[in-house]
Structure formats: C-alpha cells, structure tokens
C-alpha cells in the first residue's frame, strides 16, 4: 500500500509540466535581472558594492606597500568582508533588491499582471528570488574578487606568492562563498519580510539589530542568524574589540561544511514558507 502511494506520488511528480515551468522561470528571471542590474535605480547597489574597491584603489596609488603592512592589509580585507560587506553592503543591497521584487511591484501596482498570468505563484516567487540572488551575487562577488586582487597586487612577487602558493586563494574562495551565502540568506529573509509586512523596513532593521547583537546571545539563539553561520566560514579572524569582546559568547567551532549546510537549510526553510505565503497572497491596492 505504502509502495503504491509512493509510486503514485513519484508519477505525479514526473507528470508536472517541468519544461514549461523552467521556460517561465527563465523568462521571469531574465526580466527581473535586467531590471535589477541595468536600470538607473540600481546605481546605488553598484555604489554599495564597489566603494571599498575605490578606496583600495586610492590606497594603491598613494600608500607605500612594504612587507610590514602585508599582515595588516590581510586583516583589513577580512574586516571589509566581515564588517562592511556582510553587515552593511550586502545587507542593505539585498534589502533594496529583494524588497522591490514583491512589495515594490505592489506599490507600483504591477504585481497583478504576473498574478493574472497562467504562471504558478511558486514559479514566480522562485524566479524572482533567483533573479535577485543572481544580481546581488554578481555585483558583490565581483567587488570582492576585485578588492582581493587590488589588495595584493601592489606587493608584487610576495603578493603573488601569497595568493598562488600560500593561503591566499583559499581565503578568496572562502570570501566568495561567504558573500554568495550572505546574498542568498539575506535575500530569502527580505523576500519573506516584503510579503509578510506592508513596510518590510522596520522588520529588516530589527533583523539588523538581531544580527548585530547575535555574538553576545546564547549559542542556541546564534543559530537563528545569517551572520553567525558566516562567521564560522571566515578564513581570517576579525575578533570583537573592547567591551563587545567581553560580552561575546564563543560558540563551539563549526566546520565549514556544517555552517554552509546549516545556512542553506535556513534559506530553504524560509523559501518554503515564502512559497506557502505567496499561495494566499492578496493585493489590495487601495491600502498600499
């Protein structure tokens, strides 16, 4: 009996119009991607992503690069990734990108065109998520790679040796993974917030506060945060300083794989709930 039910479910699964959904998702993703990357409204995300690059470029032009500053620059780069990109750049970038996907369309009174078209709402939501993620990942990962290259380029042979024969390349891989996961994690959360709340910003700012105080919370609560998973993936430790260092709760070290899987699990859970929410989504433009 159980086997029959299982086989039935598998048959139903295989009979779904996957090809059509893939085509619809592809088209929707292309539309959203164009809107997120090539509109004048997107310029501020470029600013968020590439302002550290500009500063590092000025550093190359005007500062001297001797061997003594090598470790300092490695620490500074880690600080830029952990404290600027994760806490501010990717956070506000994703807030802007992902809040616009659903709530922005509601405010512009254009979401009903999508909802009236013969597209499954889950396909619509996941396509929008994919487009937002692709835009955020493309910008922030490019910025991270350029930052990394510019940081070690002026050191010449020592820099090349550090990158290709030392831990440099591994660090770059870790930074890229961190930025990708941060974009996906924050994106999933903000997409959900933009569906649940009429104004997702207060919720997002509460989330920012939660992420900020997270290191001083008990380890069980630290698992409900995007930044806590990413902290475990950092190749260079940028410890808290001063008073915050006293309050920081040091959790057990988690392997990179476990942290990545933990965050992916969190993202999947949030997306599944978003898919559930969008099935019952109603638009009342008069109250927007």
């Amino acid at each position, binding site marked *: 009996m159980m086997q029959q039910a299982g086989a039935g479910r598998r048959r139903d699964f295989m009979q779904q119009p996957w090809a059509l959904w893939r085509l619809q998702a592809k088209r929707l993703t292309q539309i959203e991607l164009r809107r997120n990357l090539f509109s004048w409204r997107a310029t501020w995300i470029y600013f968020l992503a590439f*302002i550290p690059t500009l500063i590092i470029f*000025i*550093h190359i032009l005007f500062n001297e690069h001797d061997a003594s500053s090598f470790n300092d620059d490695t620490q500074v780069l880690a600080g830029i990734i952990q404290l600027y990109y994760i806490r*501010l750049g990717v956070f506000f970038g994703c807030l802007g990108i992902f809040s616009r996907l659903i709530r922005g369309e509601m405010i512009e009174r254009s979401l009903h065109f999508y909802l009236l078209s013969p597209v499954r709402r889950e396909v619509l939501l996941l396509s929008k998520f994919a487009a937002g993620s692709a835009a955020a990942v493309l910008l922030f990962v490019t910025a991270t790679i350029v930052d990394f290259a510019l940081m070690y380029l002026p050191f010449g042979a020592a820099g090349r040796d550090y990158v290709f024969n030392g831990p440099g390349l591994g660090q770059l891989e870790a930074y890229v993974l961190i930025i990708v996961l941060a974009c996906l994690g924050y994106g999933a959360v903000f997409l959900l917030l933009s569906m649940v709340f009429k104004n997702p910003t*207060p919720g997002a700012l509460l989330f920012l506060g939660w992420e900020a105080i997270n290191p001083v919370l008990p380890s069980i609560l630290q698992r409900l945060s995007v930044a806590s998973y990413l902290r475990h993936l950092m190749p260079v430790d940028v410890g808290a300083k001063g008073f915050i260092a006293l309050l920081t709760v040091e959790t057990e070290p988690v392997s990179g794989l476990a942290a990545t899987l933990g965050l992916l699990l969190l993202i999947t859970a949030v997306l599944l709930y978003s898919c559930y929410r969008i099935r019952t989504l109603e638009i009342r433009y008069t109250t927007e």
Partner: protein
Amino acid sequence: MSIHKHDYRAYTGRVTPVWTRIFVLGRYSLAEAWSSKFTTVLFVVCLIPPIGALFTIYLANNPAARLLMGNVGPRVLAIDGAFFLNVLTIQSWLAMALASWIAPRLITLDLVDNALPILLSHPISRFGYVLGKCVALFATLSIVTWVPCLLLFAYQGYASPVPWAAANLRIAVGMFAGSLVWIGLISLLGLALSSWVKWRVVATGIIFAAILVPAGVGAIVSEVLRTKWGLLLNLPLVAFSLWQRLLGLHDHVDELKKLPVGAILAVLALACCLFVVMLNKRIRAREVVRG
C-alpha cells in the same frame, strides 16, 4: 442677484500672523505622525532606557538598596558625565529610529500625491512648509532625547545626598545642546531623503542606510588609508565626539581617534547644508504628470 454681478476682492479681515501658520502644518504633521500604531510602539520602546537609567540613579543614591546589592562600590553605579553620555547616546539612536519612521510619513505622501502645489498655494512659503514639518519632528524627538535626559539630571540633583546639580550644570547644558544638534541633523536628513524617495517603504531604510553605510565606508577609509579623517564620514561618531566635548569628557577620547572640534562642526554644517540643498531642490510647487 445673479452670481456674475459679484466682484472678487481681497480678503480684508484679520490675517493670522505668518509665524503661527507654521504651527498649523506642524499640528497636522504631528497628527499624521502619530496616526500609526507603530509610532506609539516605537515611542514606548524609546522610553524604556530612561526608566532603566532612573532606576540606576535611584540605586546609586539609596544606601539601603546598595547594601542589598552587596554594597557595590561607588564606581560601579557612578552617576557622572559618562553615565549621562551613555543615556544620551542610547536615546539618540532610538530617536534616529523614530525619525526614520516618522519623517517619510510627513513628506512622501505630499510629494507622491502631488499635494505640494495645493499646500504651497496657501499663504505659506517653502521654508515655512519645511519648518512646519521640522516642528513636528522636533516635538516628537525632543520627548525621547533632551526631555528625559534633563528629567534624569533633575532627579539625580534631587536624589543626591550632596549638592550635585549646580556643580554639574555643564552636563545638563551639554545634553540639551547635543540633543538639539542631533535632532536638527536627523530631522533634516529624514526630510531631505524622504523628499527624494518616492516610496515611504524605501525611505525608512534609506535613512538608516544613509547613516550606517557612510559610517562603514569611513571605517574602511580609516583602516585602508591609515588615517583618522575617514571617521568624519561616521555621523554618529562625529556627533558622539561633539557630545563628549559638550559634557566635558574629551579627556577620555583615544588620541588616535580624536577629531578636532573645527572638523566636527564643519562636517555637521556641511551635512546640514547638503540636506537643505536637497530639500530646496525637491520642495517646489510643481506637478509631475506621467503620460
């Protein structure tokens, strides 16, 4: 008599003074700001830290309570400039959260719904319009910044067993002046950014981003270029440095991060000028018609 026989003529009755008209806008703006339940929730949250501070002052001045706490030393519960600086800092951050919620409510709808030409067709100037909105923000933000701070100061003066208030009057003046500077800055920032953003939903986030992102960029500039001048982009830190000086605590500042008063005042003035220019550009009696 048919209507066309009437000649139109100027109103000759008593005219309200120009300065009172600003308060009409202020009154309506206050009503708009407080029409949301979330404003009330935020306001209540803003009053929690002063209650905690009040309790701390009570404990610090009550020997019996201190005895119950294991007779903690006077340094643990010291009520001095540093204590009031902490209260002012917390209240200022909360005031910023309140401003980022209220400011877009005051201005965005007027602009999006093309109501500004109608408002400015009344006998009120563009400056008066902005001032009216600022009055509403000033009134609301005052209740969470300098008012509780000065009430706490007064309570400490009353509860202290030794004459305290007169000797520490500088703290009160510093908190008042520091709060006014902060309220002015975040009011202008909130109104300026709200006037440039079409969606109220986005405006709240952008106000926060406009404070936090430059602070992060300033930190990068300081660390990468090995200079303290990047800290001037960090408006909360700049304001904090000013408060330290106003409260007479500038000796505690780390020499490497010590910003000159001239630079602090220049940055604050520059920021305010920028916000005024932004407002001047947007607050105009024009109607946007989209085809």
